[in-house]
């Protein structure tokens, strides 16, 4: 007896909205319904899983739908889980619809229980037990309790490889991440887990395949458990097969790039023992070479053919270049304060040009070397509908590179120090370097400013200006007693001659006025007699630098070096030159680059020429202090003046500078995110010497030998805070010269190790 439904009424809806029920219920007003369509409607409501009971009744042409809602979950408590984190569990539950606010499904609960048992079994925790219980709460809600007893993971009692003749058991078992527990075994690495085993088998296979045993086979693996489920025995039965050597190799398929260019990428030398790894790496290098010419989706498949008689394997590389890909747009994400052009000008990959993996990677390196970003990632996405065009997206995480600090300090030597300094390598995100510094203390008043635009031209020719005004009256700042007022400025240019090397030139002018105090060492008086006390200088500095570091901030690999020659230009009163060399090398010890060894050295040699007798004492090299030899007071190493009435021996500096340090960078234990922090142990050594000392000063003419250098060891920390990098060091002198003054704690703002 079918009828037309004029109206529908839903009874029993407590929490469900009408809208959601309507979207499930197949019948609307005005439909012609009969037994069959009503039954279908009830089934539809049931299958939605929201209702315990559904009843349809008819009152004339009014269809009444009586529903009893299933209770909703309002609280889920999980107890006893240690190995599997609660968030992971909650996600798993949510995945199955068991989440606070959703309707409770009994089937989902059993499913999660089984899945958990599988997870624990995979971790070797065969003794795990899981009980679930449901606790009714008022207003048709309920609480879900999951109680987990994880049990102990079965310990690996014995790993045995049968059938190995070429390599010893120890050598093979050493490859396994599964370990039999030693007595010191506190952590869980003695525990069995299936993933670990499959990883181990893979390592075993590659070990043999990479050493020439192409026919190596794992016949079978047995995992057996003791009845008390506490111990696991793993036995791997293998057949090693014979040793094979590389035969010849060739290319096949549409090469798109000159064949010799591709063949040169192959690292295989015929006659050498076969190695699958070498073969796979050669294939990668070929596809990378194709990628450099736009064939990003190139697919190179190495196919070995085995010659059983003379035990050789010849390899054919099948090349499928795919389309030559072009880059449509390059987008940058994350540069909320750095301007787009600052990133785009580092790009070696152009828009509307063919994509080149080499160019893309070089662009990423250059962004990292800027030192503005703590993280740089690149992603390619194909342009929808255009098979041979891609978009590039470089996502960066900005890091304030430079420091913004105002300092008020008191030090015994220079009294109250007021100072404000802004130094920014990426000033207002413009990519320009700006530094502005004003300090006022008892013995120095200084105002300095410097600016550099690294991209004065589009090719990266940089141009910069700097100016300073300084009044120094140095009596007790550990230097000889005199006043020196100086002011000047310089203009500098620099430009790249290739991806890593740069040349630089700067021309400056400065005026220095000297006034000697009463208690002054002999050297100074002699100097003033010879040279007078006011000088105009026109320093010209030429420099060459090469940077192969992998990152601008906290590099972990690569090297960089810089040579500069400062010469007093024509028209200068004092004629002298200063040659400087700076070199550093980062060598990562672990492949996750958290353990790195770093060596660095600073060398300097200066001398006078023409009618100037000696390198002016206020231009000599100084050593000691945070940025040269840590653990010693600033500028206090090296020769001292023998005779001042006040008895303190003032350091004079020297015309030869030798410093060097060896550092071990290590990961800080217990701290997860190390990306903006660096801790290291250092051994610094250094000193300055004076080659043309006044002969009658015993504390000056030391001969340049290692024993006359000062050295210290200690620990250092660099930390990239949001206002800029901060570095601290604790240094303990190991070898002190006679007059060295040590300084245990030193710090600096704006510089990292």
């Amino acid at each position, binding site marked *: 007896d079918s009828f037309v439904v004029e109206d529908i009424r839903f009874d029993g809806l407590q929490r469900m909205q009408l809208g959601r029920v309507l979207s499930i219920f197949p019948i609307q007003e005005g439909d012609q319904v009969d037994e069959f369509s009503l039954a279908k409607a009830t089934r539809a409501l049931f299958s939605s899983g929201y209702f315990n009971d559904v009843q349809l009744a008819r009152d004339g042409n009014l269809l009444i739908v009586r529903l009893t809602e299933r209770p909703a979950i309002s609280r889920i408590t999980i107890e006893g889980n240690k190995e599997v984190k609660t968030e992971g569990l909650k996600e798993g539950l949510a995945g199955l619809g068991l989440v606070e606010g959703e309707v409770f499904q009994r089937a989902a609960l059993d499913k999660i229980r089984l899945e958990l048992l599988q997870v624990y079994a995979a971790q070797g925790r065969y003794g795990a037990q899981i009980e679930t219980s449901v606790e009714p709460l008022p207003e048709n809600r309920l609480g879900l309790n999951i109680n987990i007893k994880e049990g102990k993971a079965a310990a690996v009692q014995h790993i045995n490889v049968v059938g190995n003749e070429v390599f010893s058991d120890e050598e093979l078992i050493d490859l396994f991440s599964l370990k039999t527990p030693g007595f010191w075994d506190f952590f869980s690495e003695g525990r069995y887990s299936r993933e670990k085993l499959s990883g181990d088998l893979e390592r075993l296979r590659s070990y043999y395949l990479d050493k020439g045993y192409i026919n190596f086979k794992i016949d079978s693996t047995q995992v057996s458990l003791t009845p008390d489920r506490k111990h696991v025995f793993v036995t791997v039965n293998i057949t090693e097969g014979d040793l094979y050597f590389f035969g010849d190799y060739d290319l096949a398929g549409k090469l798109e790039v000159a064949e010799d260019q591709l063949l040169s990428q192959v690292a295989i030398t015929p006659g050498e023992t076969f190695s699958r790894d070498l073969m796979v790496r050669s294939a990668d290098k070929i596809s990378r070479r194709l990628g450099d010419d736009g064939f990003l989706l190139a697919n190179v498949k190495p196919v070995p053919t085995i010659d059983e008689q003379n035990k050789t394997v010849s390899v054919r590389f099948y090349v499928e270049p795919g389309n030559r890909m072009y880059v449509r747009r390059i987008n940058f994400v994350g*540069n909320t304060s750095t301007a787009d052009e600052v990133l785009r*000008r580092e790009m070696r990959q152009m828009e509307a040009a063919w994509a080149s993996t080499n160019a893309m990677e070089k662009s990423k390196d250059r962004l990292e070397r800027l030192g503005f970003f703590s993280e740089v990632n690149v992603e390619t996405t194909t342009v929808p509908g255009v098979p041979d065009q891609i978009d590039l997206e470089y996502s960066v995480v900005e890091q304030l590179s430079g420091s913004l600090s105002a300092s008020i300090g008191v030090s015994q030597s220079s009294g109250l120090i007021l100072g404000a300094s802004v130094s920014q390598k990426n000033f207002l995100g413009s990519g320009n370097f700006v530094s502005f510094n004003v300090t006022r203390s008892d013995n120095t008043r200084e105002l300095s400013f410097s600016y550099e635009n690294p991209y004065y031209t589009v090719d990266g020719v940089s141009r910069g200006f700097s100016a300073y005004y300084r009044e120094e009256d140095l009596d007790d700042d550990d230097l000889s007693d005199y006043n020196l007022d100086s002011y000047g400025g310089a203009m500098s240019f620099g430009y790249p001659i290739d991806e890593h090397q740069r040349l630089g030139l700067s021309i400056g002018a400065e005026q220095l006025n000297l006034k000697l105090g009463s208690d002054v060492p002999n050297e100074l008086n002699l100097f003033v007699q010879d040279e007078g006390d006011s000088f105009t200088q026109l320093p010209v500095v030429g420099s060459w630098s090469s940077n192969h570091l992998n990152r601008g901030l906290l590099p972990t690999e690569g090297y960089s070096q810089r040579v500069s020659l400062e010469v007093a230009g024509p028209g200068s009163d004092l004629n002298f030159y200063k040659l400087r060399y700076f070199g550093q090398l980062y060598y990562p010890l672990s492949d996750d680059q958290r353990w790195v060894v770093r060596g660095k050295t600073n060398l300097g040699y200066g001398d006078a020429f023409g009618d100037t007798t000696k390198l002016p004492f206020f231009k000599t090299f100084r050593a000691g202090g945070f940025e040269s030899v840590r653990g010693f007071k600033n500028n206090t190493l090296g020769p001292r003046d023998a005779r001042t009435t006040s008895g303190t021996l003032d350091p004079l500096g020297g015309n030869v500078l030798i410093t060097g340090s060896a550092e071990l960078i290590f990961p800080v234990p217990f701290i997860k995110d190390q990306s903006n922090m660096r801790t290291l142990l250092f051994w610094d050594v250094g000193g300055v010497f004076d080659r043309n000392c006044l002969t009658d000063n015993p504390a000056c003419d030391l001969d340049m030998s290692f024993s006359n250098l000062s050295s210290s060891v200690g620990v250092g920390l660099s930390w990239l805070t949001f206002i800029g990098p901060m570095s601290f060091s604790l240094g303990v002198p190991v070898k002190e010269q006679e007059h060295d003054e040590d300084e245990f704690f030193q710090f600096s703002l704006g510089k990292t190790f």
Partner: protein
Amino acid sequence: CSIFGEQAEPDIPEPQLWKEASQALTDLNYEIAIEKLEKLESRYPFGRYSEQAQLELIWAYHKHNKAGAAIAAADRFIRLHPQHENLDYAYYLRGLTRYVEDQSVLNRFLPTDTSQRDPGAARDSFEDFSTLLNRWPNSQYAPDARKRMIYLRNQLASYEIHVARYYIKRGAYVAATNRGRYVIENFPQTLSTADALAIMVAGYNQLGLTELADNAQSVLDQNFPDYPGLELE
């Protein structure tokens, strides 16, 4: 039976929780409002007030400049209530939060030209507002959304022009003209449209594609007769 057992808090009845939450909202105490609204949502997921609570929660997060939480709450609301009658409010709030997010803290104080920075937030905000406009053209929030969209469109257009200028400087003329064309096709009638056309003309001439250059030039002359010409820094 953990050692420091958290006592099950007393189950505050729903209407009282809602009253406390709206009270906190009226006296602009967003901290308390957020706490109450969050409890309301978890204790009474399907209660009478749950939808209204979720909407108010988005507003509270936004005013408490918790942009991330506001956007997440808006996403959840849009997913849970696809046909809700004031869904437009959710889109408007999400657009607004992203719009504000675009002006990051640093930019507000220092004179940085945000149109040269990462346009991501601006683009998302633009999308939310345009969804709002096409699905609810006469929503009460439409006028304000339209106003903000014009600003955002200019931002996005001038970003493209900055990039195009760089590629002209770099000598990558096809890249420059494509960026210009992107403005013409996606952001018509903005302040930068004229610049875009000028860049296309300059680019095509450099490439020797005079016919394309002339076409672009004629469109430029018709629409922007008094265009001062492209100054390239």
